[in-house]
């Protein structure tokens, strides 16, 4: 029997992109049976007709319908593309764990990620894999970080990492879901990760929005980026912690995630803490929701074809020297989300994994990361451009701090 993959939220903007890419990747007879799921039959019907795929209509607040749907014979993986993930991720992930189905989503909401993370223990015991943030955010940065840390560890088994910085270039056009996520995050503080001074523990701490800024070169000269509460920070924390726990690294001092901002956005972020209480007022929330509903559902095909996106990864050693400075240019994030999430599903389908891969996993764990970067012209990175502006070098463990080695764009 073919393994079944259910794409829940296939009627939404990202869901449709994923469903079309999945149908192209796994045509009939390829051993994977795709199912389109969602809350409303009418939004699923056109896509189901276009792709010739069966649908499963159920709401997540109906526990018996949800459990019944996930009990379907042969169902292997559930892909959740239905936002807002604050409403959908936890019930769908819980039901998936109960029913022994792997769960993958494309959430970009950090608080959702942390809430679903609490299921890691029970998922591991149930032999179920949970991968949150398998879209462009946070799969791209996670793949880059996994590879870079592997190379650093291979170059120096006693490597000490000072800072890991992930930075995203500005995105041209965004979907309604992304705007809603950004709106929610305005009221939150920015999370950064700091290494414990005496142990290998990585702990998160909070800073006011707009306080931490840094310059990055996204390809057109130095641009200001502001620290943001990105999901990528949480996957980076897990990936770095994994390297520490396995003894591949000795120390990581800090992890931060940034997003490029223009002057208006900077002002907005810096004012965010002040206006946050006002944004919480019911009337404001309603007005914003109405305004968001008036926006286009997402960028059109032409916009997406033009849109390229820059993701930067910088890793410093303990003395401020640069160990890695990578820039990856990807296709439009919404299109690339479909690629990364299907890569994760492919990893789940093709990997003969036992309990060692069950539980809470970052996207990179489902890829053969070395192979992805060994031949970037093929596979996942075929439409990307990777620029390595600094190769891993042995960490100067005893050298004095040499600021001249820092790459300051």
């Amino acid at each position, binding site marked *: 029997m073919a393994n079944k993959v259910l794409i829940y939220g296939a009627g939404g903007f990202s869901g449709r992109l994923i469903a079309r890419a999945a149908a192209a990747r796994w045509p009939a007879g390829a051993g994977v049976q795709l199912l389109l799921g969602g809350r409303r039959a009418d939004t699923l019907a056109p896509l189901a007709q276009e792709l010739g795929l069966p649908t499963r209509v159920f709401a997540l607040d109906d*526990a018996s319908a949800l459990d019944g749907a996930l009990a379907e014979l042969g169902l292997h993986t559930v892909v959740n593309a239905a936002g807002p993930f604050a409403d959908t991720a936890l019930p769908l992930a819980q039901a998936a764990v*109960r029913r022994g189905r792997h769960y993958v989503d494309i959430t970009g909401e950090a608080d959702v990620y942390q809430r679903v993370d609490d299921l*890691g*223990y029970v998922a591991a015991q149930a032999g179920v894999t949970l991968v949150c943030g398998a879209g462009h955010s946070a799969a791209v940065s996670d793949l880059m970080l996994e590879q870079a840390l592997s190379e650093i560890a291979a170059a120096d088994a006693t490597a000490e990492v000072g800072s890991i910085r992930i930075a995203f270039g500005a995105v041209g056009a965004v979907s309604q879901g992304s705007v809603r996520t950004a709106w929610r995050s305005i009221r939150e503080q920015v999370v950064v990760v700091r290494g414990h001074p005496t142990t290998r523990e990585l702990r998160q701490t909070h800073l006011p929005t707009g306080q931490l800024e840094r310059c990055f070169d996204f390809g057109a000269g130095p641009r200001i980026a502001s620290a943001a509460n990105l999901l990528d920070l949480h996957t980076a924390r897990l990936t770095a912690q994994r390297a520490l726990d396995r003894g591949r690294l000795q120390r990581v001092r800090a992890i931060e995630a940034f997003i490029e901002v223009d002057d208006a956005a900077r002002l907005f972020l810096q004012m965010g803490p002040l206006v946050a209480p006002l944004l919480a007022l019911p009337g404001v929330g309603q007005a914003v929701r109405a305004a968001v509903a008036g926006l286009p559902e997402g960028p059109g095909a032409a916009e997406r074809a033009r849109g390229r996106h820059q993701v930067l990864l910088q890793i410093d050693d303990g003395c401020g020297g640069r160990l890695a400075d990578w820039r990856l240019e990807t296709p439009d994030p919404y299109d690339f989300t479909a690629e990364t999430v299907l890569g994760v599903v492919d990893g789940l389908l093709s990997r003969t994994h036992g309990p060692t891969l069950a539980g809470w996993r970052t996207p990179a764990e489902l890829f053969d990361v070395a192979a992805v970067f060994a031949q970037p012209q093929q596979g996942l990175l075929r439409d990307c451009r990777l620029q390595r502006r600094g190769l891993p070098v042995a960490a100067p463990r005893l050298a004095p701090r040499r600021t001249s080695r820092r790459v300051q764009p």
Partner: protein
Amino acid sequence: MSGAAADGAVTAARFWSGEGALTPAAAAAVRDATRTAADAVLPRRLVVEVVDDGDGAWLVLLATQAEGEDAHRALIAFGSRCVRVDRLRQLGFMATEAAIRAQPQADGSLQLEVSDPLCIGGVPACWVRVHGVRLPPAAEAPAAADPGDVDAQERQRSAFTTAPPSAAFATGAPRIQRHRQLQAAPAPEDPIRQVEREVQVDTLRRGVQPLGRGAAVDLLNLGALEAAALLPRTWALPDALCGHVELPAQWLPPPGPGAADPAIAWAGALRRAPRVPMLAAAGYRFTNVDIVGFRIDLGGRDDVAATLQQMVEPLNFHRHPQGRLSGWGTQAFRWRPAARVLVIELLRYGRMYWGEQEPQPGAPFTAQHELLLRTLVGRVDDEGAQARDPALFVPAIFVDNPWSRMIGRELQGFPKQLARFCSADGPLDLSGCRPGTQQPVPLARVTRVHTEPCFGAGGRGGVDVLGLELPPGSDDPALWADVRPLMGGAGALRRARWRQGDFTDPQFRRSFAGQALGLDPAAMPSVQVSPVDGRALPSAWVTGTMLFDRMEAGTPAGVARLHLPRDDAAARAQLPPAWRALRRLFPEGTIVLSTGSWYRARADLRMEPTQG
């Protein structure tokens, strides 16, 4: 299999077993009642086994054997020592405590009566009677342990005898008897289902000799257990054997704390199944529940935080150092005590139901007393500013109904221990009656609760759990008429449990306190951890809701005094860590509670498990 204890001593005991054919109808009934489809083999024979270590500790096993199989599958096991029963449960035997009395008969055989362990006065409620038991001559008795050292006594009993094996033991062809059992516990991802694993427990028999005369077993009353398919009737056991048995090392008490975490050691090697049919009721229902509650306010003390955290630490099993590499995620939350308040409750359950099943007259699972220590806990993210998910957690609980103890431990994660509840005039039965009376003694007249670690002839070695002194009049039935109009209802119970000022830690002060105080006292969420005995199965949070109906509550006037036992060697052997921690919070050993700090309540109660 090992025939020697960890210290090298042979663990020898005497055994007798009798076998007889099952009728086809009985065999089919047993098969249908067995736990999972994997076990649904048709049994052919009924096996009754009796083990005696010569020190007053008995085991009685009812098992079946399928055609062509040499292994036995125990349906139920009875033990006269709590420690040994717990060990049997860890090994996958459905085991419960029982008083087991051996009465010599005129023909030289023994008649064993297995009955309610805490039954008082008159003829105890007999569950099983075995006739014609003939044991081989006893080995030399072990040296007695210091009578004051209950811990050492219990260790010695658990290890059976350390005496050199008798001549009979050393001779004769050894024979291995295998038991095939299911270890089970609530599934971590869905505690209303279970994870299970088939385990084989082998015992080495020596000096085995067939007996000329057979025996019989009367199965009288076993509640809704699988073995209930065989009763009520007498079964002939024409094929009998006796000899000596070397008990396997796994039968001995488990290693102490620090052993490898079972959740990591065993993950992935388990199968999932619906619950055992007998335990598959959706919820448990109790009517006529009488409660005396004591609110112990520790708010003004700075030295209690660590002790309270210690009490709730079993909930934090997920914080395992290897967990991150096992896919457990960041494990970035911890259960913490939400308020510096503990609640001790003494309860009497008038009638107890499994699901909607009406308790049968004379059935073993009908009523009970309960004494529990309860605290409010919340989940705190490591870097979070606010706690969430308020729930009740019970770190220590005592009951006088062995079936309730078994089910509470197996399914709901309540670490129940057996205890006897007494009034000033002596022990009370499950309904609260004194011997020869039908009228229950009022709950407020319970003055003492103490443990009973061993049953049968010469029950011994118990320790006090709690002494209670309530003011005169608190047992007066007219109390309800007085308090109901004034302070009755759920509101009184809410005030008696937590107040805003109890939430002193920053993470619990604001929204959490609001949530906790806003909880409907008639629907309290709860969280427990299973398994409670460290068996080699993954741990699970078992969540549920305690639903109270027809609640009446009030705060009687007067000062109540609670007397806690000394934290000595005997207490360490028999009382749970949380109860001993409570004692350490009150070095003087007495808790004095004024009006308003203790309450009376009456309600019907349902325990509904939460799915997933």
